[in-house]
C-alpha cells in the first residue's frame, strides 16, 4: 500500500514519444484523426505539424497517478483534465504532480503534463485510493 501525504510531490514521469508514436496510439485507441498522423493534412488545417493525441497525454497522466499510488490500475478512481497547448512528437513530456489532500484513504493529486514551457495538460486532478 502506497503512502502519500498532502504537499508531497509524486515521482515525475518523463517520456519522449518517437515519430511514430501517434500511429501506434491511433491503432491502440481507434482514433485515426489525420491531424495526429498525416503531416500534410495537419499543415493544410493550419497546424505546425502532426500533434499528439490529447488522450495519449491524459493516458500518461493516468499512468503517473496510478504509479504514485503503488501501480495497481484499480487505485485510479477519477481523473479530470483540461487540454491546453498542443503536444508534439519527438519532444520530452514531463508529468508532475503534487498531493493536494488525503482523506479516508483517498488522495487527490494536482497533475500537469508539459513539454518545456508548454503545458499541454493543466488543471488536472487525479483521485487515487491508497
Amino acid at each position, binding site marked *: 500500500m502506497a503512502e502519500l501525504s498532502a504537499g508531497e510531490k509524486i515521482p515525475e514521469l518523463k517520456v519522449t514519444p518517437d515519430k511514430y508514436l501517434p500511429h501506434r496510439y491511433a491503432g491502440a485507441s481507434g482514433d485515426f484523426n489525420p491531424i495526429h498522423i498525416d503531416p500534410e493534412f495537419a499543415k493544410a488545417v493550419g497546424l505546425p505539424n502532426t500533434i499528439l493525441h*490529447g488522450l495519449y497525454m491524459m493516458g500518461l497522466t493516468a499512468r503517473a497517478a496510478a504509479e504514485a499510488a503503488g501501480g495497481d490500475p484499480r487505485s485510479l478512481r477519477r481523473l479530470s483534465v483540461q487540454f491546453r497547448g498542443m503536444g508534439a512528437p519527438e519532444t520530452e513530456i514531463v508529468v508532475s504532480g503534487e498531493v493536494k489532500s488525503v482523506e479516508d484513504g483517498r488522495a487527490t493529486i494536482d497533475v500537469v503534463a508539459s513539454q518545456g514551457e508548454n503545458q499541454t495538460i493543466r488543471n488536472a486532478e487525479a483521485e487515487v485510493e491508497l
Partner: protein
Amino acid sequence: MAIKTEAVGKEWPATTYEVGKEKIGEYARVLGIENPVHFDREAAKAAGYRDVVAPPMFCVTYSAPALGPAMFDPEVAMNFAAMVHGGQEFVWGEPACSGDEITTRAKCLEIYEKDGKGFYVFETVSTNQDGAEVVRGTWTNIVRGV
C-alpha cells in the same frame, strides 16, 4: 448566430465492445506501462482480477465509439473545423478485464455559449455484462466563434 441547444438531453443508441487480451497489451505498451497484470493472465489473477485487466484510460477505446454518432448528429450541429477537445473526466467503477462485454450509452448533457465559444458536453456511461458500471466519461468540446 445563436447556438442550437435542441440536442440537450438527447441520447444515442448504445454500442457494445468485447475487451480482448491482446488489445489491452497493445494499449499498455503504447503508454509504456509494464505492470504484468496487463499482459499475463496468471499475474492478473494473482492480483485479484478475473482476467488480464485494462489500464484505466483504455476506457477511451471502448467508450468513444458510442460518442461518434452524437458528435456528428446534425441536431448537435457542432462546427468541427473550429472544434477542440477542451476537457475530459473519467470516473471509474469495476475494472475492465479481457472477455468483458462493455455497453456504452452517450447522452448530450449541456450545450451553452460563453465568451463567444460554444461548449458541447457529452456523457458516456459504460457498463459490463453484469450490469456494473465500469466508467463514466464527461467529454467537453469547445467550438471557437459561435
